[in-house]
């Protein structure tokens, strides 16, 4: 398992797998499979995948510990950047195909519609995380402040779920399922913090730095 995880091709394979949702959209686009309302379909699909990749990113640390597979860290940044990637697609669909770059209208929406406000917050918070995801930025910021900054993804996850929840008309089951997952992942972190304080590894966030920064 470990060997597989650190294998050269595994990362490339996972990278390609992360592109499958986009490939599926393109395929559907060519195959007339985007329903009668393609813009809505694309908006929802890219939104779904943004949230899913945020969850994948948040899964990495718990799974590393629970499965005792520290090598999983190799994929965390990639998942995070894919969350940002699908978030960009989602946001561009909205700006372009829903608002047609009427920025005044967009701003009014953000200010007036709570579900847009939280969705926008979730997206904006991902921007600094994407920018500072490189090894150089980790060095520049120092492990501790870098990690502190990247905790913003917790807010992004919660805001993303609220965005979804406020959008649906009555079928709250799906947003609630995302919500339960986020809560579980955050509670795990809280429990882990209390359980093993002061954990050397977590007490010194600079330590996993070489792993974070590789690849």
């Amino acid at each position, binding site marked *: 398992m470990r060997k597989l995880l650190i294998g050269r091709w595994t990362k490339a394979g996972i990278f390609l797998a992360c592109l499958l949702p986009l490939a599926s959209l393109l395929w559907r686009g060519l195959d007339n499979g985007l*329903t*009668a*309302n393609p*813009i*809505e379909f694309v908006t929802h699909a890219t939104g779904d995948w943004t949230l899913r990749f945020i969850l994948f990113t948040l899964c990495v640390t718990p799974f590393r510990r629970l499965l005792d597979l520290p090598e999983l860290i190799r994929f965390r940044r990639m998942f995070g950047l894919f969350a940002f990637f699908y978030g960009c697609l989602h946001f561009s669909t909205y700006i372009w*195909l*829903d608002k*047609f770059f009427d920025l005044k209208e967009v701003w009014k*929406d953000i200010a007036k*519609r*709570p*579900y847009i406000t939280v969705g926008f917050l979730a997206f904006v918070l991902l921007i600094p995380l994407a920018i500072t995801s490189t090894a150089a930025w980790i060095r520049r910021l120092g492990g501790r402040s870098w990690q502190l900054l990247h905790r913003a993804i917790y807010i992004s996850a919660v805001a993303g779920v609220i965005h979804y929840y*406020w*959008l649906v*008309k*009555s*079928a*709250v*089951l799906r947003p609630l399922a995302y919500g339960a997952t986020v809560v579980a992942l955050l509670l795990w972190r809280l429990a882990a913090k209390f359980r093993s304080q002061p954990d050397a590894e977590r007490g010194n966030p600079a330590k996993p730095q070489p792993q974070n920064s590789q690849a």
Partner: protein
Amino acid sequence: MHEKSRLTNADVTPRAAYQNRRKFLRNAGLAAAASLAGREFWELASPSSHAIAGTKLNGVSKSPFSTTEKQNSYDDVTHYNNYYEFGIDKTEPAKNAQSLKTYPWTVSIEGEVKRPRQITIDEILKLAPLEERIYRHRCVEAWSIVVPWIGYSFSVLAKLVEPTEQAKYVAFESFYDRRQMPQATHAGIDFPYVEGLRLDEAMNPLTLLCVGMYGETLPNQDGAPVRMVIPWKYGFKSAKSLVRIRFQNEQPPTTWNRLASDEYGFYANVNPTVDHPRWSQAKERRLGEFFKRETLLFNGYSDQVASLYTGMDLKKYY
């Protein structure tokens, strides 16, 4: 058909349960056997259970109420549906509604009427000459379509049963059977679906008792075999697969209104100046079009219906 399932699920069992257990068990056994036998007989009698959907309708005349706007494709209108009994995704009803048995079908007309009655779908189809009404249809979710519906004014049916002086509202109830609609459990709204109109709204000639579209009987996912179409109101007002029409003195509690009264008013007239609390209603996306278009007051049917609301504050009675 639905009468039987109602009896089996909701009516017979609880009532039998009051009685002594032995009798209950015997009854339950009998009911199950009867239901099974009934099903068998039904399968034999009608080899294709949804033969009624997609049957060509003859002698359909044109209507002056029709718009000349470009119609949406049959494919769009049959594969992009809000029919929560068959799933919450727009593409689900096209798949899941095929199991709905739409024949035989009876609609119960009751309440404040001089001649309450049960009317079969065959009778409904022959009650008045069928007209094609090409209407704009605007969903509360800010998308719209243009559909060539077939039917006749609801007032024809109303006059048949003669509403009494007491009748001020009409409630429309949709078919509901958990066995045929297993996806309904996850919809988050209560069933059976109920919608309603003020009597004068129901009697407006635009209000359509609809039995078909695109020259044929209604496909299941679009509300077969008979539904309402109220073109100046948001789509959720137009209840599908009707089994009960009740004339009454009080405003009926309606499904979406009960779920969130601040978001879905009883009137639900299309109005670009009254936003849904969570999104704007100023514009809409006509399916098949790239750019959004401006939403029109009463969905463009002001000439026919604005007088129904003279002096009414449309922001208050949204």
